[in-house]
């Protein structure tokens, strides 16, 4: 299956061995989009890698920026101003909304729904992307965060527009849930498909909504409390069972969106005027050190591992891409299922090939 296949989300290939329609063996093949992002980053300055991180997971450029900024800020102690921290949280949660609604749309599209839920999702995504454009100048490749703050402040009236959007969003979610969550076909297609046990999920390093769907209460926003996440009150939904299937992964994302809205409301209430850029100098030149910074990106744990050697270029630049490592369990989940299930299991993992292949 693939690399040119309508539902492999890019150029991903699965070597599938079939018995009738049942999957007997499956080997994922990657690398079609490999551009050696890490090597490129080792040959340019720290700041210049920032726009390249946008291109990793092109749905979530804001969170990618943030993960990189966190790793770099660990390398050199930089204070981030209050307003910048708030805006980072707002951007990250908006990104989470964008990612999760599009994922749910794609997922139902893989189920065969001719794009209707996907297009509803894109309609709402469009509104959020408009907000991103107003803040950063670009809709997807935002390149908005800087070490020690943000590139620029949001324009006037932006917060009000964001507020409007956040207030209207639950209504859309209700409609979306009405369309999807009780649909008999979706229920019977997804439940019991692609089961992933708790132990395997932990051992295989699965992170993000997929891990929580397998019944582990682990959210880096809660565990590391990076940024200012300790100030917000929010809950982490996770499955009751120790086994997660596609339906769990789908529902956990629906529920997480509601929690993101809660965070957004609190953040929009709490934000105050102030500078958005800290005391970072124009030239970023850390002393020899190592730093591993990670955040809870919408897809899972996104980590950046930087080794500095005292020059303006990183000596080693490593990305820990969540969707790449979540793919470890693809084979285990697919064996014994139907072809149609393999497609939705892949969809429920939520991969972006820009990140898998780097």
């Amino acid at each position: 299956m693939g690399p040119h296949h309508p539902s492999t989300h890019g150029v991903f290939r699965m070597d599938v061995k079939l018995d009738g329609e049942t999957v007997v063996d499956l080997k994922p093949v990657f690398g079609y989009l490999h551009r050696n992002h890490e090597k490129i980053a080792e040959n340019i300055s720290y700041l210049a890698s920032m726009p390249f991180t946008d291109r990793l997971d092109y749905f979530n450029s804001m969170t990618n920026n943030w993960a990189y900024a966190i790793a770099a800020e660990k390398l050199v102690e930089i204070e981030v101003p209050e307003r910048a921290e708030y805006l980072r949280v707002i951007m990250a949660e908006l990104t989470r909304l964008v990612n999760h609604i599009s994922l749910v749309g794609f997922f139902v599209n893989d189920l065969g729904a001719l794009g209707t839920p996907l297009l509803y999702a894109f309609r709402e995504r469009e509104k959020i992307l408009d907000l991103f454009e107003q803040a950063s100048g670009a809709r997807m490749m935002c390149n908005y965060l800087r070490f020690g703050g943000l590139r620029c402040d949001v324009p006037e009236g932006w917060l009000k527009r964001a507020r409007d959007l956040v207030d209207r969003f639950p209504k859309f979610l209700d409609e979306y849930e009405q369309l999807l969550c009780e649909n008999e076909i979706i229920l019977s297609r997804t439940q019991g498909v692609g089961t992933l046990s708790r132990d395997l999920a932990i051992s295989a390093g699965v992170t993000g909504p997929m891990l929580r769907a397998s019944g582990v209460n682990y959210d880096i926003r809660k565990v590391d409390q990076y940024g200012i996440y300790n100030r917000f009150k929010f809950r982490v939904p996770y499955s009751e069972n120790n086994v997660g299937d596609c339906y769990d992964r789908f529902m956990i994302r629906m529920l997480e969106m509601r929690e993101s809205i809660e965070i957004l409301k609190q953040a929009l209430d709490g934000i105050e005027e102030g500078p958005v850029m800290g005391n970072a100098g124009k030239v970023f030149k850390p002393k020899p050190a190592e730093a591993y910074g990670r955040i809870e990106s919408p897809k899972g744990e996104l980590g950046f591992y930087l080794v500095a050697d005292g020059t303006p270029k990183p000596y080693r630049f490593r990305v820990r891409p969540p969707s790449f490592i979540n793919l470890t369990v693809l084979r285990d989940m697919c064996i014994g299922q139907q072809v149609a299930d393999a497609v939705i299991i892949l969809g429920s993992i939520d991969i972006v090939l820009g990140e898998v292949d780097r």
Partner: protein
Amino acid sequence: MNWELIKDILLATVPLLVIFPTMFALTTWVERKALARIQNRIGPNKVGVPMSRYGGKLSLFGLGQPAADGIKMLFKENIVPTGADRLFHLLAPILSLIPAMLVLCFLPLNFPWLTDEQNSVKAFMLDGAVIFFFAITGLNTLAVFMAGWASRNKYSLLGGMRAIAQMVSYEIPLVLSAVVVVMTVGSLNAGEIAKSQDGWNWFVFSPWGLAAFIIFFIASLAETNRSPFDLPEAESEIIAGYFTEYSGFKFALFFLGEYIAMFAISGLAVTLFLGAGDGPGAEAYPSLKVIWFLAKICVLIGIMIWLRGTLPRLRVDQLMSFAWKFLMPLSILNIFITGFAWHAENNNEEYGFTIKAIIWTASLLILYLTAKGLDKVNRANIKPRTYQYGE
């Protein structure tokens, strides 16, 4: 040579060849437009008659789209994969179109320009019209599998296999639900079935008729590979199924065949359950009958489009179990109920309304509860879930 007969035949069939392909073109436009609106898009709205000489153009809501599509299809390259069986690859789309066109003859469209005598040359006056209809639509399966096999492509083959399994399975509930009507009328003649429903005496207005209609409609969705049963051409799984390797006009033929089959089967549904050409004013002006008939087909097509815009598709095994474990028992039960009710009504005419009311409520209840029970048995483990929250 009997020129009169040939003239009659032409008078009866040529309109079919005009009306339905035109409807096909319009339906593709309507489908695109309606799906677009369902998905909050605009849909085709640009293609029209270019009139740049007079400044601007006549876009007519994009009504030129079907014509543009057709022209594009005609001029596209005809690609046949290496290793494909060229003969069968060529034959398959033709074979898929022929039965679909043929069965149109069985629809009791009373064209106003045909007298009763001329009408009789039409195939729908054939005594076994309904049986013939099913027999000929069955050929479609062959075409689909031929396409899947001849393409020499794994996706196509999978699509062809799925199509065979699906069409053969759904043929059974389809026929069984038609049996209800045939039993009640006591004739397989489409014309007579149509006539027996005149004066708002439609079959859909009785519990067993309604149940049979719903089963028939669901099965006909599966027969014509419409969503949510479009597994043979499941885009997200097997690319385009059996016509993955088709391009250009061959693909257009498949497309045409599929839509004509949709019209044909909706036409049969209209004939059997929705009172054929009956409708307001049809008694007084018989020429309205054609219009009503076509309008009802359009409504059914509209529902198909609407369903397509809403539902995801089933999985192969679920599709099969739905046909064999849900639709089939239900339609067999429905036959028994119909027989019982028909006898009860006809033999107890003195009680009139009371017995009718009792029978109707009872049969409605039995049918609904059986359906519910079957559903519960089939999908025992499937229900919405609740989730925990961690702080």
